[in-house]
């Protein structure tokens, strides 16, 4: 099954609010650490290496420095 990039979240606004709230009171380093743990937890939930590679490529193509040759 390919990476789902169409709308798939049950409650987008609720999710987004919860994501931001999870970072409340954390300094930048702690926020980065939380994000790293979150990526690992979600990656394990997805499981499929092909889907994860697609997600990594999609995320990387959104990074400004990735556009440079």
């Amino acid at each position, binding site marked *: 099954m390919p990476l789902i990039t169409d709308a798939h979240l049950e409650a987008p606004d609720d999710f987004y609010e919860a994501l931001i709230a999870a970072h409340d009171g954390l300094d930048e380093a702690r926020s*980065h*650490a939380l994000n*790293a*743990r979150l*990526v*690992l*937890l979600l990656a*394990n939930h997805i499981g499929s290496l092909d889907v994860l590679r697609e997600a990594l490529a999609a995320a990387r193509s959104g990074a400004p420095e990735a556009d440079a040759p």
Partner: protein
Amino acid sequence: MPAPQDEADFQARTFAYVPHADQRAPAPVRRPVVVVGAGPVGLALAIDLAQRGIPVTVLDNDDRLSTGSRAICFAKRTLEIFDRLGCGERMVAKGVSWNVGKVFLRDDLVYRFDLLPETGHERPAFVNLQQYYVEGYLAERAAQLPLVDLRWRNEVVATEPHGDHVALTIRTPDGDYRLEAGHVVACDGSRSAVRRQLGLESKGRSFRDRFLIADVRMAVDAPAERWFWFDPAFHPNQSVLLHRQPDGVWRIDFQLGWDADPEQEKQPERIIPRVKALLAHSPAMKDAAFTLEWASVYTFSCMRMAHFRHGRVLFAGDAAHGVSPFGARGANSGVQDADNLGWKLAAVVRGHAPEALLDTYAREREAAADENIRHSTRATDFITPKSAASRLFRDAVLTLAKSHPFARTLVNSGRLSTPTTLHGSPLNTPDTAPFAGTLVPGAAAADARVTRADGREAWLLRQLGGGFTALVGHDPAIEAALKDVGVDGFALDVLAIAPAPAGAALVDRDGDVARRYDLQPGSVVLLRPDAHVCARWRRPTRAQVEAALRRALAVPQEAAPCP
């Protein structure tokens, strides 16, 4: 072989330089095989060749064993190879056997692994044994074999390839002499002189980190396990690895970082406080008295030569490839190189196989080196993160590992050496029927408990001879079809295996053979002389088995006689 009563000064032994008649010969003498380097790889190869009836000359530039524990961890597969070479039992009897590893983050256990969680194997996942014992035991085994001509203090100073031989110039305490070799195998380590003399390189990636190794003698009672700490309180921001060795000696590897001064860090006044800090963290160890046996500061690279065969010169072990120490893939992969090359070189020297068989040594072991380098590089990147993001994810994995099982699979303190499966080897005959399990063509044979027809308990791998073996799920018709099968120079050994006593068959007393090999009545698994699977069938014909034997010897099929 009786072990010497006193091995207290084993490491300090030296081997006598004995002048050889070849040094006084009027013209260079021709020797079929010359092995350069009497370390674990060169000695294993020499013993294997001699056991196969090939005279072998071994040249070593020194007259002593290695210093310090060095390779230390010898894997199950290596021990099984040493069994075949006639010295495995002594290694295991002397070594400290272990199967369990523990990983700590700061002071907390985050992950425990068992490398051999099942029964039915003669050998443990690993023994820890100082490299000088391994070299010494191999040297003593080699000395029992009249076909091994081991020349200490014989340094190769020039290597010149020719069409039908390689000319070597050798320096001894009595001056230089020349020798001609049918084949040369360079097992002369990471700074291989033969490699340099041929203008060849081993290329790869160096890591900007330094590690202190200390061998410490102390009376401490702790389990025989591999303990690895990330960021322990007693050595903050770095990693530490602890192994127990024989003779009450412990091996500790302290990560120091790139900025450490290697000369200063080797001084006892710098090492002793580090060891004391480690001991102080543990109630069982905190008051232990210790003495420092040996210490070294090392850096490492992951590299390999582009090709392991250059005509009549072959490269094996560290001369051909290098890895980081995490995973014990250096000496163990080198012994696998020797195991892979021994039977092939013997067959080529005897004229039973074409030179093309030696290309398969290079191809199979180059792929194995790539696998070892990949594992070793990944472990190194986990232990020594190279970027802020890498460090962030490493710490995230370690933090999650304590309470989330999935994260433990990501913790990488070294993926420990297992035999390389030779996927895609041209010597493999592809499957024509489905089989369950991991013993695909190319895999190293798995052990199992068996009962022999005489009623004695035994191990499957001990029943293999030095040639090709067919494991047959007991079936009289198939066994009759395979009677006296052979190709030039190789008679096939047929080992019938049955679930219950049946004639001469081995009894699969725990069902492990049937389970591990998916061996059913009439199934045949063909093993090479190095005990790798090279073909398997449900009910093969004699012609199929003969074709697989020729294929495993790199004999062109069209050149084979009609069946």
